[in-house]
Structure formats: C-alpha cells, structure tokens
C-alpha cells in the first residue's frame, strides 16, 4: 500500500499532521496503537500562549471549540494553574477567586473526583463551599457497580441523562453563584457542556477527574473523525513493528496486522510519543528509539537520568530523538532524508516549542508545512 505520507502514532501530533496534510491534498495513513496521551489531556494547551489562526481553524473545523483567555484554571485538587488557551468546557478565570459561594456536585461512591479537596482549595481563596452528592442510580438504570464508577463509564450514562443532572442541580442550588461539576459530560456530544451551562442559573465550572479524561477522549474522537472526513486512513489498533531503511531513505514500514503488506510512502512521520507511549524505551544502559534506532539526545550516565526528589524536574523527561532544525533525525550520524519526528518523542530537544499539547501541535504543523512546501528553504519555517 502506497501513501504520500505514513504517520506512526495517532495522538495529537499525528492527527494534527495528518489533518493538515490531507487538507493540502496529500494521501496519508496513520498507524495508531489505540490509546495515547489525549486520554489524560487536561483540556488546556499549556505551552501555547496565543493561538495562531492555523491552530484555531485546525480545531474549529473539527468541531472543537477553544477559548482564549489568559488567566488561571481550577485543578482537580483545588489548586490553580496559569492557562491561556483551553477547550470550551474548561473554565479560565482572571484570578483564583472567581466566585463568592460555590456548590460542588459529586456522585455518591465516586472516588475519582476530589470534592473535599476542591472545597478546601476554594475556601482558601475566600469562597464559601457546599458539597452535595447525587446518587447515580436514581438518575440512570442499570446502576453502575462499585468498580464501574470511572470517568468514562459515568460519562456514557451522562450522555443520556445529563438533563436530569441539570434538574437536580437546580433543586439543590440556593444562593450560590457557581456550580462545580465533575468533567464527565459530553463524551460523544460536544454540545452537552454548553447546554448544561444554559440550563443552570449560575456559573458552571467543570473540574477534571482522574484519567481517562472525558474531554481528551472527545477531542481524540473529533480529530480522528475530521481526519477521516478529509480522506485519511486511520489504522486503529495496529502497531508498526519494523521499518526498512535503505541508505538514507525509509522505504516502508511493517505493521502487526497488515502482515506482509508494507506501508510505502514518500515521507514518514514518527509521532509515537514519549516513554509512556513506547515511542522511547530504555534499559539499564541506554535510552533509545526502538523502531528506527534513531540518534538520541540524552545523558549516557544513568545516574543523571533522575532527580531523587519526585517533585523536581526529572532529567529523563527531557530526553528525546535528536533532529535538525527541520525535525529530521539521523541514524549513526547519517541524516534520514524522508523521516520527520514530532510530538513528545522529541522530549525537550526543541524547548522553544514548549511541551505536551503545545509541542505536539507546533511540531506537527511545521513538519506538515515542510512536506507540503518542498521548495521552502531548509531550516527556515514560519508559523
């Protein structure tokens, strides 16, 4: 099977590159193992200070509404973090004291949403808090078992009965100006969070739960849908198991399910993620990129990989594949001509691009531009 570009990794970086290339008329395929970092996406693009029109349109065309409002957002344990660009259902405030009286809604027997921590955090900011529990069994049958009380299972129920939650909250609401709900709304229908806001006569804030992240999974599904609408081939649940490289050019890659049907392409993009996504791996002696054995940028002394304090920055998280300014990697010092590396597999080798979602989107757009504008001067790119 032959494509213009084959992308390894179907997370935020891979999908961004894929969508951008499909829009430019390229024929692409994405090989995705399934889950990716979007499953614990906070809903906030932390390292993006100001969205470019290109980023705005990437999301709006996929049906994902962003809002830009520099300030802080509420974290799940009642603290605040500086943020500027987020999904629409993630509230951004000019300052941590965003209300006067707050009603916090949780579900009974749900241990992945920290209502008491939220209340304590908000009370520190001078807000008065009241916590009330809804019984999920009263809202939707059959009842979830005690070990099914996880974000996605609840969200599936909520897609059906979110309006009952609105009614319950309206009954519970006294003189509070803000209602906090767990972020378990709008898994399959992105309009639900907004409809909940319209139904409750107070400011509605959705606070994150333990992963998996409902807005993250929704984002993943919408981007994937957009990519497929544009004609992209998303190979879900498959894994690239090998690659054939001839001299300085990748010829094809092999996947687990396609067996001997190699995926051939003019260009390949490696967006296979960091350690957790297995884009990077390590053993007692080295940190390596397992698929192409690309040259790495990292400290070879294992004692320097860690900081003994958990809270400090961990050096290993900065390790990544070494590339030139055009995101082209090398093998044993020889540059690979038609391979590009994007997203968290870069670690912190391109600090100007930020980390997490910011790094994924920026590096993906840059590489997609390089591929679609082959005459651009190497090393010079514009955002």
């Amino acid at each position, binding site marked *: 099977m032959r494509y213009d570009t084959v992308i390894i990794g179907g997370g935020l970086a891979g999908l961004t590159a894929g969508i951008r290339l499909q829009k430019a008329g390229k024929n692409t395929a994405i090989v995705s193992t399934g889950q990716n970092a979007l499953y614990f996406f906070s809903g906030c693009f932390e390292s993006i200070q100001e969205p470019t029109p290109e980023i705005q349109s990437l999301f709006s065309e996929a049906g994902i509404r962003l809002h830009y409002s520099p300030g802080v957002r509420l974290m799940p344990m009642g603290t605040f973090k500086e943020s500027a660009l987020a999904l629409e259902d993630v509230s951004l405030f000019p300052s941590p004291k965003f209300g006067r009286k707050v009603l916090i809604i949780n579900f009974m027997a749900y241990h992945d949403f920290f209502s008491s*921590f939220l209340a304590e955090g908000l009370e520190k900011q001078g807000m008065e808090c009241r916590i009330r529990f809804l019984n999920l069994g009263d809202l939707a049958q059959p009842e979830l078992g005690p070990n099914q009380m996880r974000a996605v299972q609840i969200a599936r129920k909520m897609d059906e009965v979110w309006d009952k939650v609105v009614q319950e909250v309206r009954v519970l609401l006294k003189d509070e100006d803000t209602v906090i709900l767990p972020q378990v709304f709008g898994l399959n229908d992105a309009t639900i969070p907004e409809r909940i806001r319209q139904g409750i006569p107070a400011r509605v804030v959705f606070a994150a739960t333990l992963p998996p992240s409902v807005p993250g999974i929704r984002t993943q599904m919408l981007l994937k849908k957009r990519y497929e609408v544009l004609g992209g081939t998303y190979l879900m649940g498959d894994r690239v198991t090998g690659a054939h490289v001839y001299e300085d050019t990748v010829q094809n890659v092999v996947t687990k399910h396609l067996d001997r049907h190699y995926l051939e392409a003019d260009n390949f993009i490696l967006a296979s993620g960091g350690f957790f996504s297995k884009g990077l791996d390590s053993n007692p002696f080295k940190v390596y990129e397992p698929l192409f054995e690309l040259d790495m940028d990292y400290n070879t002394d294992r004692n320097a990989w860690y900081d003994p304090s958990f809270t400090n920055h961990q050096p*290993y998280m900065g390790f990544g594949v070494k590339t030139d300014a055009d995101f082209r990697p090398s093998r044993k010092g020889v540059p690979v001509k038609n391979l590009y590396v994007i997203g968290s597999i870069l670690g912190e080798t391109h600090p100007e691009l930020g980390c997490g979602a910011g790094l994924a989107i920026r590096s993906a757009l840059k590489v997609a531009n390089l591929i679609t504008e082959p005459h651009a001067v190497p090393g010079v790119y514009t955002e």
Partner: protein
Amino acid sequence: MKANEFDVIIIGGGITGAGTQRDCAMRGLRTLLVDRSDIATGATGRNHGLLHSGARYAVNDPESAAECIRENMILRRVAAHCIDENDGLFVTLPEDDLDYQKTFVQACRNAGIRADIIDPDLARRLEPSVNPDIIGAVRVPDCSVDPFRLCAANMLDAKLHGGQVRLQTEVTGIIREGDTVKGIRTHNRNTGEDVEFYAPIVVNAGGVWGQELAQIAGVKVGMFPAKGSLLIFAHRVNNMVINRCRKPSNADILVPGDTVCIVGTTSSRIPLEECRNVAVTPDEVTLLITEGMKLAPRLASTRILRAYAGVRPLVSADDDPSGRNISRGIVCLDHEVRDGVKGLITITGGKLTSYRLMAEMATDLVCKKLGVDKACETATTPLPGSEEGSYEEVAKKIWENPTTAQKVAASRMGTRVSRMRSTDHRDEALICECEQVSMGEINLAIERLEASTLTDLRRRTRVGMGTCQGEFCACRAAGLLAKAHGCIEKEREDIDSFLQERWKGNFPIGWGETLREAEYTQWVYKHVLGI
C-alpha cells in the same frame, strides 16, 4: 493507676516490640507501646519476607538454625494468615561445590530441620522458574511471611488485650530516679504534645536504634548496623523459596510473596548515623540482578518494581566492644544485672522468624521482675485473623461466591475479614486496582489499625504496592483518609510524601517499564492533578 501509668512500656513498633507487647498483654500486664514513626518501619518491613526454616544457618550457626525451625513450626499454626507454606529449595549450580550439599544436609538434620535431597529434575518440575542448569537440590520447609501483616496482627491483639499503642511518638528521655528507671518522656510528632509515661519496667525494642535509646538511659549497647539491599520484581516468578546451596553470600535468596518476588540481599556495614536514610546504589542493583538471574533466569526479563534497603540490628556480644564477635542470635539484656540500672531491659538481635521467642524471653524477664507468675501462651494462641487455616475457607464462609477481591482481602486479613462484610456494596469499590484493595478494607485499617497516613495504609493493606506504584490509589485513599481525619491540608502533604517515598524505591531501577510508569505518574500528578 493513672491513665499514664503502666506495668510495662515497650519502645519500638517493629515485630519485636509488637510481639513483646502482645505477650505482656496476654499475661495480664497493662502495656504501652510507643514508636517514633509507624509500625514495621525498620528492619521488620525491610527484608525478604522469609520465614526461615533455619537451613540457611544450619552449617554456621546451629543454635540459630534450631531456633528457626521451632519457631517456623509454631508460627505456621498461630500466624497462618500471614504465612505462605510454600517450602524452599537449596540449589547447587554448576559453579558451586556439590560436596557442600552433604555438609549442609547433615547440619540441617542435626538442627532438626527436614532436608530432603531431591533429583534436579524433580526440583525443576516443582519449581519451573529455577535455573535449569542446577546439579543438585534440597527441599526444606521455608515459608514466606508478610511482616507488615504479622506486625499489625500482634499490635491488634495487644490492643484487644487492653494494650495501648502510641505511634508517631518519639522518646526524648528516660525518667530515672537514681539507679531506677521510672518511665519515659515523649514527644508526639503529629500533635507536638510532650507527655510522660510511667512504668516500673521499660523494654527497649528499638532494633538498630536501640543503641541511641540505651544511651538516653545511660547504658551502653553496641550495635553494628549492616545494610542489606533487595529488589522486588513485579511478578511472582517462583512459588517456592529458592536459595543457593553454598556458604551464605550476596543475593542468594529469592522469596515469593503475594503478587511479587524479592531477591536479596547485599551486606555492608554502615555507620549508625546513616541508618535512617539508607539508599540502594547502582552497583548493588547490578549485583542483585546478576546473582538473582542465576537462581531464576526469568528474572532477567521481569520488570523490577522497587529497590530498597534495610538495616540488620546486629549486636556485638557482650564484653566485646570491637564488634568482631557479632551475634545473629537473640540478645536479651537485663540492665539491672549488667549495668546496675533497674527497670530496663533491651531485647535485640535475632531475626523476624524468631520474634515470638524474643518476645517470650523479654516478657519472661518482665514478669520475673514484676513478680507475675503466668506462663507464655503465644506459642499456642492464634493471632487475630489466624483462627482458620485457609483463607479460601474463610472467604467462602462469609461470601457465597467470593470475588477475587474478597478472596484477596481474606488472604490479607484472615478471619478478621468478616468485619469488612457490609450491607453497602459501595464498600466493595476498589481503591487500589493492582492489589485489589477495597474501600471497606481501607476504612477498617484506618479505624482499627492506627493508619494515619498513606504510607501507614500501604503497610497494612498493600495499597500502592502494585505495578502502578500508587498512580491513582494514592489520591483515592487520600480522599478516604481526609474524610476520616477531617484534615485536607495534611492529606495534601501526605500525598507528596507518599509519592516521594514510592519514587525513592523506583529511581534506582528506573528503566524500561518502571521509567514508563514513572513518566505517567509525573504527568498525572503534575499536569493533570496539579500537585
């Protein structure tokens, strides 16, 4: 008697202290146990979890060997829910001297330890993970023991017999009147409260820290701390204990325990000041892996979960200040006879397997001094939870069709699991998925077993001990602790210190799956939860 007066005060919440308190309480004494942190934080919780058959000591220390086998047989009966009766192998590798096997077996038999030479083929069938190259094998009655569970069960029984337990309580002074010890001064590290407790007898069961305590009391006990490092593997690759049949050396024991297995140890002398903060070095990790692979080659491809180190409370035999004559045996010092200080006893040395005997010796001495004439019953009275032999039977009596989580809970709690039975199925919610720990079990540990932090909960329930090392269960359990104690601020700090404690054991082996998991934990806590 006033509220702060007791018959005997025991300092140290390790297995020796907890066992001594239980024995004293069972003989009708009013007891108090204090520890500067939590139960089982010293050597008790930092070893292989091996209930020795004594075989390991048979050649060099026949007395300890005989002691071990006697205690081993007793504990199988009275501490059934803390013990896995899985037997052990002493294997000879091609590089080892097969002649040693004869000496070894003879020594075992002399000490009263059943030691059967078996065909290497049979050994490979009995224990498929064992190195296939073995040229000799001896089967011995080794067991696995959960030291946290054992310690908690002793503490619980002491409480059931009227004993009091004060954790996070540091001894700041020994109250003396002339040559007589009258009690202790303490400082509560949680509340900041300073309290004095009085008793005619104080038992120093401080393990390696017993030297400092003795100093406070004005007597000298010479400890010779030896650090031992161990590795925990994320799967239980072996079902029998695997030992090397040679002179005891580094990393020659592999012990299965619950869902994991543990290889160790190394041995190096360290200064007393370093005892509270021992770390595993990269060289030790390499040595443990290389030697461990020789016992069970599968370890080479098994994920390592943690590295940790403990300090053996080795003590110099009396009148030998040089420390050359170090004893691994039990040392019970009557400081009245030895130093002319009345009312002070030190019980130290020994090992996990012989804790009950140590407790009996110390309690006999306490009773003699108090003029109490009551025989020791700990060799025959089961610990709470151990009244029935098999945990599966226990689970079946309580639940018609026990789930995996219920069976696992029964294996951890023994018959005490019946207290977890609740009409509210919400109590079945799993807080820790790796180790199948339910909300009911956690709440029970908070209520009945004095757990006040996440790390305390881990020691009592295995929360956060599994493959994810506390990714989600830490905040879930923190929510329950916060609810029980009503203090969110403290729980925030608690989560921090729990994660730090997990990381301490992870980074020395931080590669492969461990590094993968660590990166995920970093993301979850820093970026998702904002801690």
